[in-house]
């Protein structure tokens, strides 16, 4: 099978961010914690006595401070507004207590307080900050949502829910907690939005074995919350072969489940980059990407997905000018796209390199990749590059090019429909463009793809394919596209095709197009004929009159003026001049018609002096006296 490869593209489609955030590596005296809500790494040296450093991608939120060592730390996290630091310690008999320290300008104040959750003998599995002043304790007895009142040094319970859970998974982007009850056999999501705890529909997992904590991820993808479950062959005897990832909707994702076929076995990690689900596989050192937005028909509410393109590894990164080990055992991957190497002391984010997606694609898959790129924020330039290359090699890729145009135009169609719906429904829906990260209008395609490729041998075919695709999506060809079409078709000697397209209404009536056709009239009378039809349809009656006068058709011009309602505005002198040049008969007819016009307009058949028709009045007398 032939493969398409985008010119000057790298084979990698994922990379780690250029400059990793550095922190002190994990060591016997240093402990490293990661807060995935704020995306911050806490390095605690000697229990905090010799300093705590907070590092994150946002430099303005990085800080360091000292604190007392009150015991081994289990978890340490800032509130989202960085005004409160919460610490959970592993102290015998204090399982259900969390310490709080108020912060001011990222520096600790001496205001410290603690809170114990309502179930005295419960064990806190962890805590999360759903909002700036709200904290949720997740315990093996249930969830307690509390409001922190830092000035009063106390916490107020907002809501609590009992649930016996063994472990939990948290998605900071959707504020959803997934608690595993019954030792992993029951997965129960809770939403912590709007200062309350909402129990969501539990997930039905009909597997024979309980689900392991490391196989469950709650993540936010395409505006919905999902639970990603790794289904290993070993975990369920009914499943054989490689590992599958089941994406189960938790909230906002409809009822369709997605199954991602990895084709691999072993240890996996998950990232979400630009609405793509990335599955890192350690032993093969590859990362596969899946796009659950790709079009597919659900069967029994399940959609199967294959990797968008063949899995390759992330682009090798370097740290301190040394190549750094990729997919190392020291890596920890956090949602949505953080990668930490605790031994090296590096924090990266995973980035998408859109051009890499088109580096090596099966010929048939090119439209699929373009469709995927249309859903990526940074996809635009790569799409232009792909299209340019397809147009340049239209001899091989015409079918694929056509399908790519269809993908582009169907996105545009959906956007246009959404805009219309939005405008008619009023300013209700605020998420206008958000759903359409890349929107290629006709002007864009013309300016970036078709116009620069004006010298390609198969431009006419490519252009026709584009116009056909527009027509299929009921998008009328705009002046840009039409003008380009006219130019391209004419320079290639495809005038008949141009006329056929105009005749079949494929280019849409427009004044610029009509003028362009008209200017071709001296080479191609049929084009002028069509131009005149088009002008008449556009009700450009004045133009039609002018054209007919210039064609030595004075009576046709007068007739057109009368039929089109432009009769009153026709300059008598001009019409008479044209009629005189044509024939005496035509002159007499035009003269009489104008007299009648004068009569109607002014009550007298005579011409006004300002109309400067004296020579024609004389000519009329001369003609009539002869006969």
């Amino acid at each position: 099978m032939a493969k398409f490869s985008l010119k000057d593209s790298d084979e990698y489609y994922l990379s780690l961010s250029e400059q990793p955030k550095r922190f002190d590596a994990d060591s016997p005296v240093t402990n490293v914690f990661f807060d995935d809500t704020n995306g911050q790494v806490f390095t605690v040296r000697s229990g905090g006595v010799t300093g705590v450093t907070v590092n994150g991608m946002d430099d303005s939120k990085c800080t360091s401070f000292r604190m007392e060592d009150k015991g081994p730390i289990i978890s340490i996290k800032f509130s989202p507004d960085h005004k409160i630091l919460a610490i959970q310690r592993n102290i015998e008999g204090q399982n259900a207590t969390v310490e709080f320290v108020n912060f001011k300008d990222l520096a600790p104040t001496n205001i410290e307080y603690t809170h114990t959750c309502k179930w005295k003998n419960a064990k806190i599995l962890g805590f999360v900050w759903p909002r700036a002043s709200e904290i949720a304790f997740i315990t093996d007895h249930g969830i307690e949502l509390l409001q922190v009142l830092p000035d009063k040094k106390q916490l107020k319970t907002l809501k609590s829910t009992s649930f016996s859970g063994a472990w939990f998974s948290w998605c900071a982007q959707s504020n959803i907690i997934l608690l595993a009850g019954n030792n992993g056999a029951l997965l129960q999501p809770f939403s912590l939005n709007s200062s309350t705890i909402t129990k969501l529909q539990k997930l039905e997992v009909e597997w024979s074995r309980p689900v392991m904590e490391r196989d469950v991820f709650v993540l936010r993808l395409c505006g919905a919350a999902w639970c990603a479950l790794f289904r290993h062959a070993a975990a369920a005897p009914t499943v054989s072969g490689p590992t599958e990832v089941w994406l189960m909707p938790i909230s906002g994702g409809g009822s369709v489940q997605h199954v991602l076929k990895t084709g691999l076995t072993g240890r996996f990690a998950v990232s979400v980059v630009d609405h793509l689900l990335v599955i890192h596989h350690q032993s093969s050192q590859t990362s596969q990407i899946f796009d659950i937005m790709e079009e597919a028909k659900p069967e029994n509410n399940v959609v199967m997905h294959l990797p968008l393109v063949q899995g390759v590894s992330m682009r090798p990164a370097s740290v301190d000018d040394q190549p750094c080990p990729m997919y190392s055992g020291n890596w920890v991957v956090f949602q949505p796209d953080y990668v930490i190497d605790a031994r090296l002391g590096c924090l990266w984010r995973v980035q998408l390199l859109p051009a890499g997606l088109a580096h090596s694609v099966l010929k048939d898959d090119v439209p699929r990749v373009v469709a995927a790129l249309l859903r990526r924020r940074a996809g635009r330039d790569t799409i232009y590059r792909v299209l340019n290359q397809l147009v340049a090699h239209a001899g091989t890729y015409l079918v694929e090019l056509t399908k790519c145009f269809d993908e582009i135009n169907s996105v545009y169609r959906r956007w246009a429909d959404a805009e219309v719906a939005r405008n008619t429904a009023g300013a209700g829906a605020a998420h206008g463009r958000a759903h359409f990260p890349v929107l290629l209008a006709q002007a864009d395609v013309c300016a970036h793809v078709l116009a620069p490729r004006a010298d390609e041998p198969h431009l006419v075919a490519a252009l026709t394919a584009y116009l056909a695709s527009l027509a299929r999506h009921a998008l009328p060809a705009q002046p840009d596209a039409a003008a380009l079409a006219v130019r391209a078709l004419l320079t290639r000697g495809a005038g008949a095709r141009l006329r056929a397209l105009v005749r079949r209404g494929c280019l849409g009536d427009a004044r610029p197009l009509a003028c362009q056709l008209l200017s071709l009239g001296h080479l191609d009378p049929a084009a002028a004929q069509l131009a005149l039809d088009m002008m008449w349809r556009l009700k450009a009656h004045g133009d039609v009159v002018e054209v007919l006068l210039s064609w030595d058709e004075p009576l046709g011009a007068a007739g057109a003026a009368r039929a089109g309602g432009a009769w009153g505005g026709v300059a008598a002198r001009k019409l008479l001049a044209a009629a005189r040049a044509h024939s005496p008969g035509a002159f007499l007819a035009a003269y009489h018609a104008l007299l009648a016009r004068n009569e109607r307009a002014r009550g007298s058949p005579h011409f006004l002096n300002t109309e400067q028709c004296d020579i024609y009045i004389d000519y009329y007398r001369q003609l009539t006296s002869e006969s």
Partner: protein
Amino acid sequence: MIDIKNKVNSFFIFNSTFGPKEGDELKRILFYHPSQVTQDARKIQVGLCEAVVKFMTTFSTEPCEALQTQSKRYIFYQPEKDYWMVLVVRIPYATKAATTSNEKKEVIEPSVMQDFLMSAYKMFRMFIGPMKDIPTEDIYNNCEQFFTPYIMSRSIANDINNVIQGISYLPLEKNSFFRVVCFIDLLEINYPDFKCVSFVYNDKLIWNGLTTDDMLTLYQYLVQTLLPKQVEKEIQGGAVTAAQRHGRFISPPEGIRNADDLQKLHKVYLMREEDTETKQYYLVIYRTLSATVCFTVDVTTNLSIDTFRSLDAFIGPQLSTIASSISEQCALHALQSTQLSNTDHSFIYFNRLNLAYKTSAPSSSLTPSTAIKPEVLSIIAGIHSDRKSLGNYGEIIIKTPDEYWVTGKSSNDREFYVIIQEKNANLKDIADEVRRICEDQMKGIFFYPM
């Protein structure tokens, strides 16, 4: 109807330069029909024509066009210098003046005869080439082989299709049209040697890649000669219909199955739209369901049977899906137009620039349009052939004695005729009615208003 074929008295081609000496007169006659005419009779006929043509040059620089005697009408056509084609028809005349009026015999319109000669020549030129390029020793044979079947297969009649020779285009919604064009593009890109020059559905043209004049000739060949035979075959051969789904090459008629069949491909002289001169091509014709596609291949190309097989595999499935989608549209369109056409007046539309032709009367040659009366037809033929009378802008309304109103309209290289049978109408009613029909039927087309 009267047996038309009887009325063609003879058809012959001569070139006086071929046998200038006395006694060589037979050499001058390149072709003579009917063949049973004796050599002496031929010599006399041709001699008369030679004399007339020669004689007329004294009066005009324009070549002589016609000669009418009491019993015969001669139409001359000089397609190339010194080559003359002559068509002779008998004129019904009565020795007694008292013939009954309802047995009025019709005479072939001169313009129809002229067009017949021109079409015949163009067809000859398309398949054999210009006459002057043919070696003298071959030309007798070539003419014999070409014109005998041509004359036999063609009837010359005062039919509206003969009065105005045009191309019937299929009205097609733009998406279907784009499918056709994109299919052609894809095919030409995959098979660069093959250029698609026409796409015909039933007897209507969708795509044209030739100059308009050559298109008309090819179209007439397809619609009048090749396709009727094919359709007949398809109707007869029940078992063949299954194979038709896949489509096949229909020229040569047995199809293309092996390398030998490639030798039987017709060579034609055509001018493609992007060409600047007429060139010789192989003509390849493929048909599926009701769709017929013609390709030209440069004669210098090495043909290989593998290319044709792969082309067959490529076109077959795609063309049949396109054809069936077009047929759905046609059915829909037919339904709509039957609902629309509440008018019982006939009209004819003709565009001189693309030769588009549209009529309310059934245009298929199988059902001759009996709707149009001979007198009316003769009037239309008159208006059509005498372009000067209406010019580029004009309208004429003629009333026949038997209550027919014939309106001819010319504007912007288009012609539009309406025939209305209305006893108690005045000129204004007719003019209004014509305007209404024109607006109804010719939407989006601009006729200079009166």
